[in-house]
């Protein structure tokens, strides 16, 4: 057994963890360690070989591995210590229990940042009926098999779910010579970004079937076909209109869930909607020495947002560890009409700008976003259109944040559907 002391320990060397660690160091934390269970830094970005990352953060279009490498180089220059091939097992008060080939390592920290990312929802989460042949993959698993290991996952593919990973895999498979027969989406609108429909589906003539779902998987050793049915307004399949599409592969791109097993070991309060920790604007959980950022906090659309949010988490973790983060009265931050969730869920009333990140509940046009407290409207913003696939951000200016009273509510109102 080995014991290590540090100011800030970060769990996960993906984009969130690296941004948090660098920011912690820059904000005065002397010794910052990142724990990573894999043998390389970069997290999920290692397999996201497509371009489109970094337009906001770096002002240039990067691939996932390029984005990760920029942070990895910066982390090394900043003096962050990495412990690769090390798994975090449990949080016991202010000690993180880890294991690697040397055995158990106890890391005694001043503050801890959770940055473990998320997992994909699986067939089991959806309870799709049918047999259990080979050829059913989550989209991210297929992405890893193709982009890192060079395997071919299938020749004729149906993709369930119109999330970004699913659409990106539709293009990747098409470029690899596979035929993608359809992308099937149970909701009446696209789950991912519209640009991905344009460049991943439309470019390759792949049909998008909205308000449809997979109701049966056929095949014994290997997938032979899937049955697809339209759904009614209650998302119930209309079986008499079902059709069967032959294919050898079914990819599932049906959502992501923050990976919070470690968080639960510390008894941190979680949100039922985001499935991540409940935090204030410092990304601080109800255990004041534990902070959270990136997809373990709430599933993001863009890594650029993750980097910004994680820098906050790292900064305030460093300040907390140094005893410089003063506590203040907190107000609840809640989703109002037209908004699915808001992160953070709490706001400390201090003399500083507060960024609220949120998703709308349904797509719409000519949208007015508002933040109000019990005294009235604090912030408004008009947008040409919004979709639940995109995270919106509004900032409460310092003077209004400081004097806010009651409850903070975020609303979205569409003039047109």
């Amino acid at each position: 057994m080995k014991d290590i002391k540090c100011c800030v320990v970060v769990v996960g060397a993906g984009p969130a963890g690296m941004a948090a660690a660098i920011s912690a160091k820059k904000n005065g934390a002397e010794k910052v360690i990142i724990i990573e269970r894999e043998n390389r830094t970069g997290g999920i970005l290692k397999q996201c070989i497509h371009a489109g990352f970094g337009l906001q953060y770096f002002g240039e279009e990067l691939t996932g591995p390029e984005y990760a490498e920029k942070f990895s180089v910066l982390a090394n220059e900043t003096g962050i210590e990495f412990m690769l091939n090390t798994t975090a097992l449990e949080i016991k008060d202010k000690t993180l229990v880890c294991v690697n080939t040397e055995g158990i390592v106890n890391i005694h920290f001043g503050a801890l940042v959770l940055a473990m990312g998320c997992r994909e929802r699986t067939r089991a989460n959806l309870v799709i009926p049918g047999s259990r042949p080979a050829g059913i993959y989550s989209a991210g698993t297929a992405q890893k098999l193709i982009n890192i290991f060079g395997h071919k996952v299938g020749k004729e593919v149906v993709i369930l779910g119109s999330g970004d990973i699913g659409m990106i895999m539709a293009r990747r498979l098409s470029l690899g010579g596979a035929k993608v027969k359809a992308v099937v989406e149970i909701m009446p609108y696209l789950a991912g970004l519209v640009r991905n429909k344009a460049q991943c589906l439309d470019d390759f003539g792949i049909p998008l079937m909205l308000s449809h779902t997979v109701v049966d998987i056929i095949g014994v050793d290997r997938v032979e076909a899937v049955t697809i049915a339209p759904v009614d307004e209650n998302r119930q399949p209309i079986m008499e209109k079902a059709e069967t599409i032959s294919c050898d592969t079914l990819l599932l791109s049906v959502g992501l869930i923050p990976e919070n097993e470690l968080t639960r070991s510390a008894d941190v309060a979680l949100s039922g909607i985001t499935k991540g920790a409940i935090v204030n604007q410092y990304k601080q959980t109800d255990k004041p020495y534990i902070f959270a950022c990136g997809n373990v906090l709430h599933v993001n659309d863009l890594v650029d947002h993750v980097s910004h949010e994680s820098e906050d988490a790292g900064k305030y973790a460093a300040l907390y560890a140094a005893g410089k983060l003063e506590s203040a009265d907190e107000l609840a931050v809640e989703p109002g009409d037209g908004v699915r969730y808001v992160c953070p869920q709490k706001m400390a009333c201090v003399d500083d700008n507060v960024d609220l990140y949120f998703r709308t509940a349904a797509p719409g046009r000519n949208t007015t976003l508002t933040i109000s407290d019990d005294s009235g409207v604090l912030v408004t913003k008009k947008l040409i259109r919004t979709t639940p696939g995109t995270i919106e951000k509004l900032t409460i200016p310092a003077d209004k944040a400081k004097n806010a009273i009651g409850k903070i509510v975020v609303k979205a109102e569409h003039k047109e559907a």
Partner: protein
Amino acid sequence: MKKTLICTVCPNGCEIEVNYTTREDAVITGYTCKRGIPYAIDECFEPKRTFTSSVKITGTDRRMLPVRTTGPIPKELLMKAAEAVAAITLEVPVKCGDVIVENFLDTDVKLVAAMSL
């Protein structure tokens, strides 16, 4: 001619409308930043895409090295680009940005490594 398209320059995905007979007289509306203008014109006359893929690499646990073009290439070359990179095998060490093919498919665009291995 009138064309409605989704701008793919950034994640905003603006809906842009182009009214045109020639490249010169095109009237473009709906963009929210100036990067949308050249994108919309190219999209009507010679659509381009940044190509990314992965190529075989030996000498490490990762069997594929991510690669990209340094700029967009004509959209109609995407399948040809995929075939071209399937024939490449590299060996470690490779640095992010290393040029793999100088003039990729005669497009004046480079194919480069997108990761250091």
